[in-house]
C-alpha cells in the first residue's frame, strides 16, 4: 500500500468531497507529508489561477449559452427506455449525414460485409460534432448522443438490426418484430428510419444484418443470445451471429 494519498483523493479533498473522517485523515497526512502537501497546494493554486483567468461572470455566461444549446437538442428527446427510437423527421434534423465509407474486413472488429455492401453507424445529437463509429474497437458515447444505422445493400434484399447489452438482453432495433424488411431501392446509402439513444451504462453491441431472404426477428434475437452465451457473457467478445447473409458489428460504451 502506498504511503501517500492518491492525487485523486487529494483532488476530492480540495473540492470538499470527502466524508469528514476521510477528509480529516487525508488533511492530517498532507500536513505532515511534503509530497502530498505540495500536491494539495498545487491543486489549490490551479483553482486560484483558473479563477483569475476566467471571472465568474464570464464562466456563468458561457455555461448559460451552452445550456441553451443543449436544451435545443434536448427538445428532440422522447421518454427513456433502454433504446429510445425517434421519428424520421427528428432523426433527420439531428443527424445530417455527410459521409459514407465502405467498411471492409480490415480491422480487428466484426465486419462480415464483402463485395459492394457497406454499413455505417453514425453518432450524433450530443454537444460535439457527428462521427462515424469504428468497427475495430469499442466506441465511447457521450451523454445525449444517439446513433443511426445506414447501409448500401449491393445485391442483398433485406435488412435488420439488433443490439445486445452487457447482461445479454437483446433488443430488436429494426424491425421490432416480424421479419427483416426489404432494403430501400438504389445504390445510395440508405439510413434506417429511426435513431436511437442508448440508456443505462456499460457496453452494448449493435449488429446490422443484410440478407437475400427474409429472416425472422425471433431467429435473429436467438442467434444474438447464443453468441452472447458462447462468449461467456462478454458482449465485447461475441462472434458473428449464426444467421445467413452478411453482418457488421459495433461495440458502444455508454456514458
Amino acid at each position: 500500500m502506498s504511503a501517500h494519498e492518491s492525487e485523486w483523493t487529494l483532488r476530492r479533498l480540495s473540492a470538499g468531497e470527502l466524508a469528514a473522517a476521510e477528509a480529516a485523515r487525508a488533511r492530517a497526512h498532507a500536513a505532515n507529508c511534503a509530497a502530498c502537501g505540495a500536491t494539495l497546494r498545487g491543486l489549490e493554486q490551479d483553482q486560484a489561477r483558473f479563477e483569475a483567468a476566467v471571472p465568474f461572470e464570464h464562466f456563468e455566461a458561457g455555461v448559460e449559452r451552452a445550456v441553451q444549446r443543449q436544451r435545443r437538442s434536448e427538445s428532440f428527446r422522447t421518454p427513456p427506455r433502454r433504446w429510445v427510437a425517434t421519428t424520421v423527421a427528428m432523426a433527420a434534423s439531428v443527424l445530417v449525414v455527410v459521409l459514407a465509407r465502405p467498411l471492409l474486413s480490415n480491422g480487428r472488429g466484426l465486419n462480415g460485409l464483402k463485395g459492394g455492401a457497406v454499413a455505417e453507424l453514425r453518432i450524433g445529437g450530443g454537444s460535439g460534432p457527428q462521427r462515424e463509429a469504428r468497427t475495430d474497437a469499442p466506441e465511447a458515447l457521450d451523454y445525449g448522443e444517439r446513433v443511426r444505422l445506414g447501409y448500401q445493400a449491393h445485391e442483398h434484399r433485406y435488412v435488420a438490426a439488433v443490439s445486445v447489452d452487457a447482461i445479454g438482453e437483446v433488443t430488436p432495433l429494426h424491425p421490432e418484430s416480424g421479419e427483416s424488411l426489404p432494403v430501400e431501392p438504389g445504390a445510395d446509402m440508405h439510413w434506417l428510419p429511426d435513431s436511437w439513444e442508448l440508456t443505462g451504462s456499460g457496453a452494448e453491441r449493435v449488429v446490422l444484418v443484410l440478407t437475400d431472404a427474409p429472416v425472422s426477428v425471433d431467429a435473429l434475437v436467438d442467434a444474438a443470445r447464443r453468441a452472447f452465451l458462447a462468449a461467456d457473457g462478454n458482449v465485447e467478445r461475441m462472434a458473428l451471429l449464426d444467421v445467413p447473409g452478411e453482418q457488421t458489428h459495433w461495440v458502444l460504451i455508454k456514458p
Partner: protein
Amino acid sequence: MRELYTKYGGSVMGRCRYLLKDATKAEDAMHDVFARALTHGDDFRAEASPLTWLMKIATNHCLNQLRSERAGWRQWFERDAAARSEGHGGAGELETRDLVRRLLAKVDVETQAAVVHYHVDGMTLEEVATVLGRSVPTIRKRLERFAELGGEELRVR
C-alpha cells in the same frame, strides 16, 4: 453555479486544456461540461462524487471532440510540438503526462479514458475501474498494453 465554479472549475478546465491544448476550445468544452451537469441535474446530483462525474464527462467530451475533428490528431500533435518548444527543454525532459499525451492517439478511446484517469488524475486502478464501469483486471490489462508503448515511466503499479 458559483459552487460549481469554485469547487470544480479549475479541475475541469485543466482537463480540457490538457487534452485539447487550445485555450479557446478548452473553455468552450468546459462550458459544455458544466452545462451538461445542469441539464442532467438528476444524474449529477445522484453522484456520490460530482468531481468524478465531471472529470469523466470532460474526458469523454474532449476525446470525442479530438476524434471528430478532421485530422484532429495531426493538428493536436502540431499543438503539442509548439507547446513543448515553449515550455520544455526538449523531448528528453518530457514528463509522464506529456508522454501520455503523445501516445494517446495510438490507442482506442476507452483505453485513452483509462490512461487519462490513471496517469493524469492520479486515480487508483480501483477508482478508474469504477468510473469506467469495468473490472480492475480489464483496466490493468489496458494500462499495461499502453505502458508497452512508453516504457518504464508508464508502468502500472
